[in-house]
């Protein structure tokens, strides 16, 4: 049994998503962002409009080329949602759980970190593995400069 994760970053923070849960990865095009109350929460994918999950509370300036390069589309329940990503790093497979740690007991059953399934811990790095069923509840207030 192996566990495979795509590791990506949003600005300076790294995250992991189970490879099985990825629906598609495409280029992030700022033209497809739908603005609502000056907060871009929606994105046009062909004929569909999907919700975006921002994994940052930093200010987002779309004119800055260092911003989002890819959009990871994933399926949550019956809906497709998207995560704007700064960089894609690699797909890493784990054949045992020695490098995977669970969420600290203190947080279990509490809303803080309920969007994290577990953590990849290697070389002093702690990378949250996203819980895609609860990610939308993270609701970070990414501020957009226009």
């Amino acid at each position, binding site marked *: 049994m192996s566990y495979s994760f795509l590791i990506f970053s949003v600005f300076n*923070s790294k995250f992991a998503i189970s490879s099985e849960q990825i629906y598609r990865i495409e280029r992030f095009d700022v033209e497809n962002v739908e603005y609502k109350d000056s907060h871009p929460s929606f994105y046009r994918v062909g004929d569909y409009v999907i919700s975006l999950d921002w*994994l*940052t*509370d930093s200010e987002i300036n779309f004119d800055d080329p260092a911003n989002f390069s890819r959009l990871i589309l994933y399926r949550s329940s019956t809906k497709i949602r998207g995560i704007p990503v700064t960089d894609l790093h690699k797909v890493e497979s784990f054949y045992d759980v*020695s490098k995977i*740690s*669970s*969420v*600290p*007991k*203190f*947080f279990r059953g*509490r*809303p*803080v*970190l309920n*969007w*994290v399934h577990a*953590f990849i*811990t290697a070389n*002093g*790095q*702690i990378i*949250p593995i996203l819980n895609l069923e609860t990610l939308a509840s*993270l609701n*970070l207030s990414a501020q957009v400069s226009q």
Partner: protein
Amino acid sequence: MAKNQNLDDLISRLEEKEKEASIIYADEETEQVVIFELGGSLFAFPGKQVFEITTFESITTVPGLPSYFSGLITLRGAVEAVVNLKYLLNLPSDSQIYGTRIIFLKSDDHVLGGLADLVFDVIAIPRSNIHPPLQTLDEIKAEFVIGDFEYKEKQVVFLSITKIFSKIAELSKA
């Protein structure tokens, strides 16, 4: 001459009193405490609830983590959260956290780390030396304080780990 004798007597009695205060009688109940510095003041935790003390190396911040947490750290392969004690105790915070210590605290089955500027000492003090908290203590600190005691002529605020965990649990519900 008689005056001097009185004074000498007074001084020797004071010295005896001081000596007595530093003596721990074998049958007197003691409390092991971990004394640490935070924002220029001395604080202590009950030693029996201190799990481990490590030097600060690196900390991972994750989005959405409330400001009373400094971030996450690995301890013996497990991920644990580190509490920003200065924030919790309403002490002036600084961004320089490298070189500090992390005191890992245990309450029930839960572990949390607490950032301290310096760890001074681990000592056993007689329970009778721990005084009730001062009424003048600011409200925020008073919430976590068991009492205070003297250490090398300095006042040490003795904190309750259980109360700190309860407060963080209450804040984390929101």
